């Protein structure tokens, strides 16, 4: 195999692009794909400050690395989930990455800061662990992005993640979720702008990016996610991709081009957003879902937390 760019020995094939790359040109390919995603979907402007949701895994560390490489100011936030045998190790990878590059990483720990962990929250709220985890992450990352005055919150969702979520949402015809499945969600109603700069890259590419960049990451999977539906959807799509390279890309970007607009709620269908009476987070109810989760899990808001009403008002695309 030869590199498509320099004809030197290749180290990886990207069958979706019918291309092979040497290490140097593969890293450039990844940066180019992220820059293209940012430009095409108007994710960021020059000078924007970005908060990266960091898990210690390959995707979040890679997106942080690439954003910095592209010249953006990017800080990290790591959320300790209190999962024995997993959280301490993943935190170690996140801290090591930040320290080795002199980056700013805020660490929030669910057990010590909020008095609960994912296992107890899942049990108490009768949710699956990934649901309790997702709710906690969305709330706390949004809150930190607002508190820190960041222009955008970046996550490491890649093409495989987005294709698998789309697959699951289409199987169940989850219209509300399909309406939100965009690579960028505009800031508004107290929520920060959310961006997914890795949507043009598969997770095999992200793992390869980390190996070739010398980024140590948490390879072991979260024990609570093993065997979940999301991974099952990924395996099904990979089985199709094996026989027909490019299927995941065509599925996801075809949806964005041809169908996503059909699921965006009209102004009449949007629920009114106010502030949670306990924590001040934006919510369509009196008390937000995160505070309900806290209550059921026996957790608490941090002692120094104050309910600060959200600033209402929607920012349009012209603000990007």
């Amino acid at each position, binding site marked *: 195999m030869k590199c498509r760019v320099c004809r030197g020995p290749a180290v*990886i094939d990207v069958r979706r692009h019918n291309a092979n790359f040497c290490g140097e040109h593969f890293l450039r390919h990844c940066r180019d794909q992220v820059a293209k995603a940012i430009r095409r979907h108007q994710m960021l402007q020059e000078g924007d400050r970005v908060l990266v949701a960091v898990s210690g895994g390959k995707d*979040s560390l890679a997106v942080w690395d690439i954003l910095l490489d592209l010249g953006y100011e990017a800080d990290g936030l790591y959320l300790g989930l209190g999962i024995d045998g997993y959280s301490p190790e993943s935190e170690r990878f996140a801290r090591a990455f930040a320290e080795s590059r002199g980056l700013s990483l805020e660490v929030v720990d669910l057990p010590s800061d909020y008095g609960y962990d994912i296992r107890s929250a899942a049990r108490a709220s009768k949710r699956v662990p990934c649901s309790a985890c997702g709710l906690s992450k969305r709330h706390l990352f949004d809150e930190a992005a607002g508190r820190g005055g960041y222009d955008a919150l970046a996550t490491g969702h890649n093409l495989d993640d987005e294709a698998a979520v789309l697959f699951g949402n289409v199987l169940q015809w989850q219209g509300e979720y399909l309406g939100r499945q965009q690579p960028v969600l505009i800031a508004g109603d107290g929520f920060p702008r959310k961006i997914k700069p890795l949507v043009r890259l598969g997770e095999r590419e992200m793992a390869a990016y980390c*190996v*070739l960049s010398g980024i140590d990451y948490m390879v072991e999977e979260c024990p609570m996610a093993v065997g979940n539906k999301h991974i099952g959807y990924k395996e099904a799509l*990979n089985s199709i991709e094996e026989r027909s390279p490019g299927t995941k890309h065509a599925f996801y970007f075809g949806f964005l081009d041809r169908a996503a607009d059909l699921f965006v709620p009209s102004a009449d269908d949007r629920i009114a957003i106010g502030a949670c009476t306990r924590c001040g987070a934006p919510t369509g109810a009196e008390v937000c879902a995160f505070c309900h989760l806290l209550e059921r899990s026996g957790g608490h808001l941090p002692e120094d937390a104050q309910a600060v009403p959200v600033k209402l008002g929607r920012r349009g695309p012209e603000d990007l």
Partner: protein
Amino acid sequence: MIIQLRNPQRTVEMEGPMAVTALLVRLDIPRESVLVIRDGTLVPGDAMLGRDDSIEIRSVISGGAR
């Protein structure tokens, strides 16, 4: 050759030499879901693996909430 697999962690031994693609077919592992690593470096699909090589087959599929 010694092959280390992750998620879950286990080790298997295979007779070499063998091409990477043949090894993955033998182990029934889709190429799209793994990287093959030798001495800390990626190994492309057409590379030959020697009988004394130590190989890591690293799963790249992650899941759950993020």
